């Protein structure tokens, strides 16, 4: 090559067929399509297997249960894209619900302070995890495992091991149960919880794709050392990511407390695995660097359709748990297969 000629580093522009091919064979897109197809297959299967499945009531119930897990999974998505993990999201959710109960029922303060408390304490706990991980260099798995136990204990201590009911603030249950959409469109009584899930998802998607925080979330998961060498304050951004994760868990805490009209201090453990499973099924790699909110939402729907369908087919509770376990193992294994190919 002569020295005057420009270097030919052109990326070959594919034709139409090439473009279609590249869409279908892009691993991230393929995973999302695969997940969406699985969701459809599951829904078709259950509606054939049981006439009750497609009933409006049941659909609303699926949406309700997806709301909590979906919001938790969105929280996890950020952390997992950075290459980290958060095992405390389940008990953190409960802790936030309990704190809302403390503010509303114990102290009798107005409802907006209860909402603020849940999100604030969520962010605070996420901040703590972030400091443990980014500053004290405790591996995320261990740091958040510790937080999981710590928060579970705190919830029990603060609530006196008894559920806190929101009987003094009847409007609290409206957060999740009422239907703002149904108020305008009476034929679609979609509960507010689902609306909130949708809003959180849109906001999270914007943050992830359009803001600096999102850019650094991907960058950290892709090559943390490169980010550090580029002069970016890695510890600061990690702490921000975990704090955001915590705040979103606070929203999940509000949703579940509102649905049960109580803060159940013993609840929470196990939710983290459902959330992580939803994230992984949705195509976010546990090794970090890739992931989408849309994928996570699809993953969350797969989880709840599966559980709901099994319940409707009268599969025993124990067996539902067994199936969930198998799904989690399969999801993580496909992630390993995907990583192996890259």
């Amino acid at each position, binding site marked *: *090559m002569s*020295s005057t000629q*420009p*270097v*030919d*580093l*052109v*990326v070959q522009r594919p034709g139409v067929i090439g473009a279609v091919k590249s869409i279908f064979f892009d691993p991230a897109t393929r995973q999302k399509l695969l997940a969406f197809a699985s969701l459809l297959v599951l829904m078709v299967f259950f509606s054939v297997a049981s006439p009750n499945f497609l009933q409006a009531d049941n659909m609303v119930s699926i949406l309700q249960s997806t709301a909590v897990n979906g919001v938790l999974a969105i929280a996890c998505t950020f952390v997992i894209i950075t290459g980290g993990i958060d095992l405390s999201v389940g008990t953190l959710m409960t802790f936030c619900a309990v704190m809302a109960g403390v503010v509303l029922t114990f102290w009798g303060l107005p409802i907006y302070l209860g909402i603020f408390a849940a999100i604030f304490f969520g962010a605070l706990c996420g901040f703590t995890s972030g400091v443990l991980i980014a500053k004290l260099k405790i591996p995320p798995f261990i740091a958040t495992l510790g937080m999981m136990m710590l928060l579970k204990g705190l919830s029990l201590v603060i609530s006196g091991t008894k559920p806190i009911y929101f009987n003094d603030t009847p409007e609290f249950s409206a957060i999740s149960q009422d239907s703002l959409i149904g108020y305008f469109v009476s034929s679609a009584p979609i509960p507010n919880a689902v609306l909130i899930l949708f809003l959180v998802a849109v906001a999270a998607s914007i943050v992830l794709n*359009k*803001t*600096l925080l999102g*850019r650094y979330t*991907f*960058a950290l*998961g*892709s*090559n943390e*050392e*490169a*980010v*550090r*060498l*580029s*002069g*970016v304050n890695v510890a600061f951004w990690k702490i921000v990511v975990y704090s955001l994760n915590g705040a979103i868990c606070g929203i999940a805490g509000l949703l579940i407390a509102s649905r049960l009209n109580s803060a159940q201090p013993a609840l929470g453990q196990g939710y983290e695995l459902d959330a992580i499973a939803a994230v992984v099924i949705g195509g976010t790699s546990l090794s970090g*660097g*890739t992931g989408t909110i849309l994928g996570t939402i699809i993953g969350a729907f797969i989880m709840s359709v599966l559980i709901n369908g099994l319940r409707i087919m009268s599969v025993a509770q124990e067996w539902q748990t067994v199936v969930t376990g198998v799904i989690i193992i399969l999801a993580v294994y496909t992630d390993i297969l995907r990583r192996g190919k*890259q």
Partner: protein
Amino acid sequence: MSESAATPIVTIRNLSKSFSGVSALDDCQFDLLSGEVHALMGENGAGKSTLMKILSGVYRRDSGEILLDGRAVDIASPRAAQAHGISIIHQELTLMNHLSAAQNIFIGREPRGRLGVFLDETALNNQARRIFEQMHLQLDPRVRVGTLSVAKQQMVEIAKALSFDSRVLIMDEPTAALNNAEVADLFRIIRQLKSRGVAIAYISHKMDELQQIADRVTVMRDGRYIGTVPMATTRVDRIISMMVGRELVDAPNDIPDTSRQDMALEVRHLNRGAAIRDVSFSLRKGEILGFAGLMGAGRTEVARAVFGADPIDSGEIRVYGKKVSIKSPKDAVVHRVGYLSEDRKHFGLASGLDVATNIVLSSMKRFLKLGGLVDATGIRAAAQAYVKQLQIKTPSVEQQVRLLSGGNQQKIVIAKWLLRDCDILFFDEPTRGIDVGAKSEIYKLLNALAEQGKAIVMISSELPEVLRMSHRIVVMCEGRITGEVPGRGATQEMIMQFATQRDAAKAA
């Protein structure tokens, strides 16, 4: 290099640096003129990369000074270096594979759009495109870096450096993973940068490339500054002798010729991607075969391939004349081939367990009694026998391995393989991280093993060690064997000639 060749942009004086008490740089100097390519040469561990990492703010200096345009500066972080117009392209590329080229270039300096909250992706891509145009490089800024070839990724790194308006560009072995056409492209870009007055510090082992691109060469050895010479008028021999050091005449190679006639190991036409290219060698019983070469030449890769730790594309392995198929370390051990990895802590030893357990760990089956119980007495006895034979200094076989010195840990790894009846042994950097006294003990032990008829391959980056220990020396460069010399009478110059023979490696 035409204008302003008088005032150096960078002057480094009396610079010293040590890591946990071990001196890495001692009173070093270096200067860099506008529009020149100044090469840094030296053997592995000479301190080139450390010096450049200090200049680019990755490490802090202990003492000495760095002048920019004649003014003393303190470069406290990579960001500070960038602010001074100094950029480094590390040997291992520091890119985020999941992000686009433009996103990589402007990481930490993303242009913001509305409200200062949202990222302005259009501006980002346009700015990147402008830099690519300056470089006469046709590359889509939106393409994901992970899908690019190494050469293109390197161009992205260079673009990133240019985006800082860098006046000083440091390149650490930029051609290590490039083919000839890609090297030509890189050189074209480098010449273009030169003509714009950018000063380039260029670390490389490859003499033929430096002859094409470098204006001056500074040679370093053992963390010290040796000298600076103009590239065009200096003979290659002289640079090599500066790198090696004439006065460095170590203990002579006077080991008895223990080579016996029977062939222990024959490797023929071994291939594995670009890492191992048509490698053939043979090893006799009682022989120590030295494997010399620069870092990344492919020596460890050959050992791992023969040992079955990595899959091979093609090639034939014969053990004692018999063709064998080694697909996993387990197969290797069956054929009595052992590999002592360079990283003892990670791959060779369970450092929290005691001496006896480590020695028998891979031969546990032999120490099982009826019913699957472990024969503790047998283990103890076997371990004690090896502690005695190899003169491992330990208070008892119950001592935790991590509490022993590096030399004794190495001996435990050796004991482990001997207990498995391995008599073809690959030693990968057997004396790395071991003090001088322990080194000579390891040497004695290797000699003794050879005398007993074990066949030994010794991979080492320390030339004096290779010269002193080996019956024969094989030299590798870029995945190929570029030379073979008898141990007796070999010199460091001869080996360095082979080890830097990039052209021969390509042509062969």
